[in-house]
């Protein structure tokens, strides 16, 4: 057993876990942060992706003891951080994933979102090719990736104040629901 001091989503947390446990196991089965998913447990799928010091990393390959003293961000951390920063509702990228239908079964998406978030932080207006490459470590079995690309593009475009490119299934205009932060008030016509 190891006693660990971890910095997760800004919280200092003390936890004991078997020496050989990975960060993923500690997050899921000790801290109850089950948003990070396990799809393979051996570095093949990307479902367990978290950010360690701002970089997307596979939590299933990171030994928990080696993560002490580093800033760990999991999917559970995005919305509170956005609210702390004065935003409304979920992080705009999370919101964009929902608005674009990118979350089918959703199992790959916590990891996908953290990879995408890291991409937008280093490249706020990425090309589709850049997006493809940034997400290549996150397998998604449901979407065929298209709506994920669209979500990243939508979030990037709105952050830049641009209109997003319409999808093939709706060639004329922007079919997506308004963002949470811009949702019409109750009673307002939809």
């Amino acid at each position, binding site marked *: 057993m190891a006693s660990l001091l971890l910095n997760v989503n800004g919280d200092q947390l003390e936890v004991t876990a078997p020496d050989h446990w990975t960060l993923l196991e500690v997050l899921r089965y000790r801290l109850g942060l089950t948003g990070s998913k396990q799809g393979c447990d051996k570095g093949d799928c990307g*479902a367990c992706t978290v950010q360690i010091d701002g970089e997307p990393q596979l939590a299933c390959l990171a030994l928990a003891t080696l993560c002490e003293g580093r800033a760990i961000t*999991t999917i559970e951390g995005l919305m509170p951080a956005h609210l702390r920063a004065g935003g409304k509702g979920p992080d705009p990228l999370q919101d964009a994933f*929902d608005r674009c239908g990118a979350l089918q*079964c959703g199992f790959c998406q916590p990891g996908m979102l953290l990879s995408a978030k890291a991409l937008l932080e280093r490249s706020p207006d990425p090309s589709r090719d850049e997006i493809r490459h940034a997400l290549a470590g996150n397998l998604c079995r449901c979407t065929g*990736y298209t709506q994920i690309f669209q979500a990243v593009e939508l979030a990037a475009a709105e952050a830049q104040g641009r209109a997003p490119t319409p999808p093939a*299934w709706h060639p004329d205009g922007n*079919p997506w629901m308004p963002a949470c932060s811009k949702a019409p008030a109750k009673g307002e016509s939809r």
Partner: protein
Amino acid sequence: MDARLFEGPRERGITLMAARDQHGVGAPFGDRFQVVGRAERKVDGLAKATGQAVYTDDIQLPGMLHAKILRSPHAHARIRSIDTSKALALPGVHAVITGRDMPIKYGVIPWTPDENALALEKVRFIGDEVAAVAALDEDTANAALRLIEVDYEVLPAHFDPKDALAKPEVQIHETPEKPDRGNVSKHVRLEFGDVDQALEDADVVLEGHYRFHGSTHAPIEPHCAVAQVSPDGVLTLWSATQITHYVHRALARVLELKESRIRVIQPCLGGAFGGKSDPFALEFAVAKLAMVTGRPVKMLWTREEVFYAHRGRHPMQLHYRSGIRRDGKLTGVDAKILIDGGSYSSFGLVTTYYSGQLLTGPVHFPTYRFDSTRVFTNKPPCGPKRGHGSVQPRFAFEVQLDELAEAVALDPIELRRRNWQGEHTHTVNGQRITSNGFLGCLDEVERASGWRERRGKLPFGRGLGVAGSMYISGTNYAIYPNDMPQAGIQIKLDRSGLATVFTGGNDIGQGSNSVCRAIVAEELGLDPDDVRVVAADTDLCPVDLGAYSSRVTFMVGNATIDAARKLRRLVTGAVAKKWSVPENRIFMGRGEVFDLEDRSRAITSREAIQIAEALHDTLGATGSYNTPKLGGDYRGGTIGASPAYSFTAHVVEAEVDVETGRIHLHNCWVAHDCGRALNPMLVAGQMEGSAYMGLAEAVMEVHDINRFGLHAGPSLLDYRIPTSVDTPELHALIVESLDPEGPYGAKEAGEGPLHPALPAISNAVYDAVGVRLRELPFTPAAVLRALRAAGVGPKARAAQQPEGARR
């Protein structure tokens, strides 16, 4: 088949919704939808995006034990004895169970119960489940597995269906009651019309042999189940399943419990694609272990174990002979199919029928024969994968159609148009076709891909290929015969203004709960945020048969309309009474209820609901759906009979590297007739996901069982599912045909759009380099071999540039 339902003008190939539907009256709001037809958010989208959604492995119960399963290292062996005493003695181990603890056989198809929760007398593939351990943690459980001693008598094994047929003396499932059954799992031979004569009469007859290699679902969430037994003996099972109802029935049978003492819940599900539509060993094992230990028990399979659970797409060897006249009309099709079933039946009876029954559209041929044999082998059991039983024959046939088009010098799209079956008709095997938007699909892919300007004219190595398909929207074959509804719905409405929908339907990511919400919001004129969905919990929800055969939107959707419309009438009736006006003057919509003749008289939905609750007491309604009587009048004629069929066409743009054999996919245009897109964003997601999955199994994925029966690469690194970089640009083109019986005209969108992907690639490769690929998968090595055999290489490339003179 009531063509009068289709009154009204046609616009851009779209029939406008008629004034009445199968629920007796038309939608009260005509076709001025408020919610339906819009890109609405999903009910659980933000929960999933923020990590709040609870999947099975996210469930932690106090005192929970962890279970693991011991698997067979032999492909075929008799179990002489199992000694569990050392494992039981290991500190931390709470229970060990074997097949003897649950000896009753089961199978998802009640006619073929050939599975045991844990092996009883024999193991039949490497990975077959033998014993299970519950311990304090996974490490202890794994250590205990190593202490279980199994004495096996190793038997000869079959890995090739032809061998399994030729050597019936090595029998995988012993059938003393039917000694000559050998290793045949199911045989179906059906003939419609005089095929031999029709092929005689044809101007050209083509014959070809095609091969499908087998693939697996690979959902990102591995199978997981948690069980708990309450002190009064009620068993609750949370499971990553797409068929709560069938799991419920199977648990009752195998554990010898009353169904009323079992509750099955499907938490959020991390993908399934057919791979979670059988009852699995882990579900029985955790239930039994929870009963034995009195503690909650969880079992999570590793990725490797998911590959053994399999139930993936059947390998098939397909032989097709088709005749065509010079005018481009098909005369007949003769098919012979050998199906490698793996070690158990699973859905195999249905697969065997589907391999022939689902080919008879959208292209019509007046005579048809198929002869399909499913054979047991000592490999992980095959089952239903997205496009169950029909992706393989569709591949073969659509490639052969391309060959036929060439033989009669017709454009392949034109050939399909010329042989289109039409709408409101019957197929050669007696299936009823209602709406049919296939021509619209062909038009769309032809236009979007620039087919006329580009096909046959791209530089050597690049080409376009087309293919089409048809798929069921649910089936009237209810797996176990009964007269009860296939889908049931309950809705509760109360003074808070909230509607809660209870559905047994399984949302496996496809968004069926969101469809329920949209329909209730539409019918009751509520804001979708004021509709909540409770799903897939056998204690709370009316029975639904589950997420398979693309039935949920169609059947659950219709049941939801049924229930919601009853509630709507309760509310409008109560308001009418209060206002002393005829009921038909009261309209519910946009969060309000108002008098159609006096718009100043309006109250909020919530107020109206309160009036209704005061008048009628507690408000609720149930609704249900059952298929009409369908199917051909012959044995097996109802298998493949669906209340509606969806249609798809693909054009794929592929580039072949003649030096490496690698196929690079650039674009895939998917046009799909989904009847009506209740939520076009979700429909597009299904289309793109389907196309992706089909393209992947053509060029990348190989479910490879080696000659010892060992899975050659049970990991997501070896079983190569495409990354974001491997996936081509997917263009979803929605075509709406407005089905007369679908909910608001909707049909399925989750499986049909997969089918044409595979043959379209083969056809594109032919356009690119003039080589026919008839055997899947199109791995670089296989493609290179085919190119070499046809004399196509870097040199040929030089010789054949620049003109498209290669054919």
